[in-house]
C-alpha cells in the first residue's frame, strides 16, 4: 500500500488565487456552458415534438447537436453579440454620451495621442511588445480588438447563413415545398428576420446601458459610476 502524495504546500493557495484572479471569465464561461446545455435540451425536445406530430424521425441528442437546426440557433445569437461588441468598440472612439460611464469624456474623442495610448516611445516596461513596434505591426495591434470582433461576427453570420439555409430547406421539404438556392435564401425573410430580431435586442441592450448608467448606480461595479458621482460626470468608473 503506497502513501498518497501530499499536495505541495503552496499549490492550494496559488490555485485559489488563480480562481479569484480569473473569476469573471470563469463565471461567464460556466454560464455559457449551462445556457448552451439548456438550449440543446429544450431545442431537442421541441424539434422531436414537431417531428412526432408529423410522424417524422426524431433526433438523438448527438444528432441534434450536429444538426443545422441547432447550429443556426446558436450562430444567429453569436453573430449579433459580436456585432454589438464590434460597433460598441468602434463607435465609442468617436461618439460621446455625456454622463455615461460607458463613454469617453468629450475632449478625448477620437484615436487619442500616442502618449495617452502608451505606444512607441511612450510605452512602459509593462506594455505589450507590439506597443513598441512601428509600421503595420503597431497599426494591426492597435486595431486587433475590433478586427477580431469583426472577423468573429462575419464568421458567425456566415455560419447562420449556411446553417439557416439548411435548416430552412429541411423544413421546406417536410412541408412539400421546394428548397431555396443560396441566392434565394439571402433574400428570404427567414434569414433577415433571424438577423434583425437578434440585432434589435443587442442594440437595445447597449442603448439601455449607456442611458441607465447616467442616472443609476451599482456600487462596486466597474460598469457603474461611483454612487456619489454626479449625473453629469462622464467616463468615470465605480
Amino acid at each position, binding site marked *: 500500500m503506497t502513501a498518497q502524495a501530499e499536495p505541495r504546500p503552496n499549490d492550494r493557495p496559488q490555485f485559489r488565487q488563480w480562481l479569484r484572479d480569473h473569476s469573471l471569465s470563469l463565471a461567464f464561461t460556466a454560464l455559457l456552458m449551462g445556457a448552451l446545455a439548456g438550449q440543446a435540451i429544450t431545442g431537442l425536445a421541441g424539434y422531436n415534438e414537431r417531428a412526432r406530430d*408529423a410522424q*417524422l424521425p426524431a*433526433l438523438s441528442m448527438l444528432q441534434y447537436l450536429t444538426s443545422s437546426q441547432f447550429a443556426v440557433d446558436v450562430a444567429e445569437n453569436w453573430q449579433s453579440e459580436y456585432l454589438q461588441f464590434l460597433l460598441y468598440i468602434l463607435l465609442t472612439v468617436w461618439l460621446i454620451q455625456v454622463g455615461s460611464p460607458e463613454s469617453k469624456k468629450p475632449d478625448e474623442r477620437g484615436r487619442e495621442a500616442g502618449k495617452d495610448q502608451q505606444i512607441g516611445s511612450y510605452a512602459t516596461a509593462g506594455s505589450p511588445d507590439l506597443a513598441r513596434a512601428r509600421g503595420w505591426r503597431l497599426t494591426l495591434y492597435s486595431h486587433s480588438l475590433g478586427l477580431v470582433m469583426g472577423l468573429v461576427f462575419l464568421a458567425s453570420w456566415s455560419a447562420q447563413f449556411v446553417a439557416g439555409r*439548411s435548416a430552412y*430547406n*429541411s423544413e421546406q421539404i*417536410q412541408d*412539400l*415545398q421546394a*428548397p431555396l438556392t443560396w441566392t434565394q435564401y439571402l433574400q428570404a425573410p427567414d434569414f433577415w428576420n433571424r438577423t434583425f430580431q437578434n440585432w434589435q435586442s443587442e442594440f437595445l441592450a447597449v442603448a439601455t446601458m449607456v442611458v441607465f448608467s447616467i442616472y443609476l448606480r451599482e456600487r462596486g461595479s466597474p460598469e457603474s459610476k461611483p454612487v456619489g458621482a454626479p449625473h453629469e460626470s462622464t467616463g468615470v468608473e465605480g
Partner: protein
Amino acid sequence: MLAPGTLSELQNTFGTCRHSLPQQDLPVATKVRDVDVYGKNAIVHLDRDVVFLARFEDGWRITAAGCTPRQNRPFTCTLKGQ
C-alpha cells in the same frame, strides 16, 4: 419503402398497401435528375416525378410521391402523409 405517416394515410383511405398503391396511378420514372438533401429530409427530381423522402432509423422512406410543383405553394402530391 413508405414513411409511417404516408403508409397510414394510404391504408386508411384506400385499404391495404399491396392493393391500393398500384391504384394510385403514380408516374413511372426511370432516371434521377437531381437530389437535394438537407438533414434528414430530401427531395428527388426524377424524369417523370418528384418524390419527397425522410431518413428513419432503418433508412430512407418516401413521405410523398406523384408530386407536381405549384407556383409559390407546396407541391400537390398523389401520395402523401396527413
